[in-house]
C-alpha cells in the first residue's frame, strides 16, 4: 500500500515537473491570444530563452542572471512578433513560424560559435541552477502515512520555478478576469473596434499582452535549461511550445482549464516514461508513440467539436486596421 502511494506520488511529482514549462508557455500564449495575436512562436521563444538563460548562468554563475536574460530575450522576440503583426499587420502565423525557424538556427549557431560543444552550453554547477527546495517539515513528515508522501514527495522538493508556474495560474486568472487591464485585454481580442472607440489603443494593449507573454515564456525557457536541465541542448524545447499551444486550445483559452490540460499532457508524458514495454491487463502493450501523440489527437478532436467546443477569441489572427 505504501509502495503504491509512493509510486503514485512520484508519478504526480514528475507530472508537475514536466508540466511546469507547459503551464508557463500556455499562460504566455493565453495573454497573447486573448489579445487577438496568434502565438505560434511559443516554441521559439522558449528555446531562445533556454539558451540565453543557460549562457548567462554559465558566464555569471547565477541562476537569477540567467532567468533575467531568458526573460529579456523572450520579450525582445515577442516585440519582433509585435512589430511584424501589430505595427505592420503581418500574418501572425507566418511571423511565428519564421521566428521558430530563425531561433532554432540562431541558438545552435551561437552555441556552437561560443562554446564549441556540439550546440550545447557548458554544464551548469548547482549554484547556477534553480535547485529543489525542501519545504518545512518535509523531513519530519516522511514517515507519516498519506500526509508524508503527499507533502514530502509531491508538494515539497521542487525548484522555485515550479511553484512560480503553479502560482502564475490563479494570478493570470485574477489579472484576466478581475482587473481593468484584463478586461481591456479580452475586449481587444474579441472586438478591437469597440475598444478603439472607447479611446484605448488596440496596438498598445496588444504590445502589453505580448510583453507579459514574452516574460512567461522566458521563465519557461529558463526552467528547461537552468532548473530541469543543467545546460542548453540543441532544440531542447522539443515541441513543448506546440504542446502548450495545444493545451491552451484544449483549455479553451481559460486559465484553469488550461492548467488542467497542461497537467493532463504532462501526466501522459510522465506515464509513458514508466509504461515502456509494460503489458497492461486486457490491453497489451500500449505503443509509447500513441501516448506521445495523444495530446495532439485530443486537441484535434476538440477542435473538431467532437469533445466539447473550442471557441477562440473572435478577433484572433486578424490584424487591426484603424478606419481612416
Amino acid at each position, binding site marked *: 500500500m505504501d509502495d503504491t502511494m509512493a509510486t503514485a506520488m512520484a508519478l504526480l511529482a514528475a507530472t508537475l515537473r514536466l508540466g511546469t514549462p507547459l503551464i508557463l508557455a500556455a499562460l504566455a500564449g493565453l495573454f497573447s491570444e486573448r489579445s487577438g495575436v496568434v502565438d505560434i512562436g511559443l516554441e521559439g521563444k522558449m528555446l531562445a530563452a533556454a539558451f540565453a538563460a543557460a549562457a548567462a548562468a554559465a558566464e555569471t554563475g547565477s541562476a537569477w542572471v540567467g532567468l533575467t536574460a531568458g526573460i529579456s530575450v523572450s520579450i525582445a522576440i515577442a516585440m519582433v512578433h509585435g512589430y511584424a503583426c501589430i505595427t505592420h499587420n503581418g500574418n501572425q502565423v507566418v511571423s511565428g513560424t519564421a521566428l521558430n525557424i530563425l531561433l*532554432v538556427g540562431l541558438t545552435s549557431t551561437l552555441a556552437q*560559435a561560443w562554446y564549441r560543444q556540439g550546440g550545447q552550453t557548458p554544464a551548469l554547477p548547482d549554484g547556477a541552477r534553480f535547485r529543489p527546495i525542501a519545504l518545512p517539515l518535509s523531513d519530519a513528515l516522511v514517515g507519516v502515512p498519506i500526509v508524508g508522501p503527499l507533502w514530502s514527495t509531491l508538494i515539497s522538493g521542487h525548484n522555485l520555478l515550479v511553484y512560480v508556474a503553479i502560482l502564475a495560474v490563479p494570478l493570470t486568472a485574477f489579472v484576466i478576469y478581475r482587473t481593468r487591464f484584463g478586461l481591456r485585454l479580452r475586449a481587444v481580442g474579441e472586438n478591437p473596434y469597440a475598444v478603439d472607440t472607447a479611446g484605448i489603443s488596440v496596438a498598445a494593449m496588444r504590445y502589453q499582452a505580448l510583453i507579459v507573454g514574452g516574460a512567461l515564456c522566458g521563465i519557461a525557457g529558463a526552467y528547461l535549461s537552468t532548473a530541469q536541465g543543467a545546460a542548453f541542448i540543441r532544440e531542447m524545447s522539443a515541441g513543448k511550445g506546440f504542446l502548450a499551444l495545444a493545451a491552451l486550445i484544449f483549455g479553451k483559452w481559460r486559465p484553469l482549464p488550461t492548467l488542467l490540460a497542461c497537467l493532463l499532457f504532462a501526466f501522459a508524458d510522465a506515464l509513458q516514461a514508466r509504461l515502456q514495454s509494460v503489458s497492461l491487463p486486457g490491453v497489451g502493450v500500449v505503443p509509447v508513440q500513441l501516448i506521445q501523440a495523444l495530446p495532439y489527437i485530443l486537441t484535434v478532436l476538440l477542435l473538431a467539436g467532437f469533445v466539447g467546443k473550442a471557441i477562440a477569441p473572435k478577433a484572433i489572427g486578424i490584424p487591426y486596421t484603424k478606419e481612416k
Partner: protein
Amino acid sequence: MTAGPTEAPRWVGLVLLPVVNLVAAFALAGLVALALNESPIQLMHVLFFGAFGTLESVGFTLYYTTSFIFAGLAVAVAFHCGLFNIGGEGQAYIGGLGVGLVCLAFDTLPFIVVLPLALLAAMGFGAAWAYVPGWLQAKRGSHVVITTIMFNFIAAALMTYLLVDVLIKPGQSSPETREFAQGVWLPLAHDWLTAIGIPMPRSPLNLSFVFALAAAALVWVFIWHTRWGYELRAVGLNEEAAVYAGISPSRQIIVAMAISGGLAGLVGINEILGVHHRLLLGFPAGYGFIGIAVALMGRNHPVGVCLAALLFGALFQGGSEISFEMRNLNREMVVVIEGLVILFCGALENLFRPRLEALFRRRRAAAAA
C-alpha cells in the same frame, strides 16, 4: 486630380520586392556572421561555391531543389485558397510511407509498373493526411493551421511506431526497413548523363527533378487555366463572393488541401525512391517548413516557387560547406537565413511594399504628367 496610372508596375511586386526582402534577410544574416567574427562576404562566397562550384555540388543543389519545389508548390496551392498548410512536413512523411509500402510489397515487379504505383501512393497518402485537416476546416471549422501542426506531430509518432515496431527489417537495431530491390530505384542523373557522353560525378540528383518541374507546370495550368483553379482562387480571394458565384467554399477547401498534401507527399518520391531506397526515420528533415519559405519567396507562383526552391537548394548544399571553411559558423546558419527569409518575405511583407509601390506610383504619375 488628373486621371493617371495609380498602380505600381507589376514587376515591382513580382521581382523587385522579393529581391529587396531577400537582400534584407541576407544583410541580417551577414550581421550575425560579423558578430561572430566571420566575414559576411566569405560566407556568401562559401555558400555560392559550395552550391555551384563543381558539377557534383550542382547535382546536390538540384536534388535539394527537387524536394523544395514539391514542398513549395504544396504551400502555394493551399495559399491560393486562403489556407496556410503548415503540415507539409507530416504530409511528406506520410507520402514517403506510401512510397515505402508500395516498394516493399511490389519491388519484384518491373520498374515501369512500380513507378506509377509509387507516384500514386506518394500523392494519395500525402493527400489523405491533408484531407482530414481540410475536411475539419471545411465542415467543422477547426483552424487548419492548428490541425496541420498537430498532424505533423501525429505523423511523426505514427512513423516512429511503424518503423520501430512494425516495418523494421528483422534482426537490425536501427529503425529502418529493408532496402528496396535495385530494379525499382529511380534512375540517377549521373548514370544517364554519363551514358550519353556527358561526364557527371555522382550525386543524388534523380528523375524526380523532372517530375518536380512537371508538377510546377501542372500547378500553373491548374491554378490559372482551369475552372477548378479559378474556383479555388475565388474562395481564397473572397469566400462570400464565391458563394454568390455558386462555388462551394468547403468543397474548394478540401480539394485545395488534398492537392497540397499530394504535392507534399511527392517529396517522398525524391527522398525514398530516389535516394534512400528504404524507409527511415525523419527523412523529411524540415523540408516541409522550407516549403513555406519557398512559397512566400516565390509569391505562390510556380515559376517563383522553382526559383526560390533553387535558392534554398543552393543554400542547403552550400551550407554543408560552411563548417569546413569557417571556424565560427556551421550549417545552422542556413536555418537562420531560412527564418529571416520567411520573416521578411512573409510576416514583414508590408515593411517595404507600401514604400516601394508609392515610389513607383509617383514616378509613373510624374511621367504621365
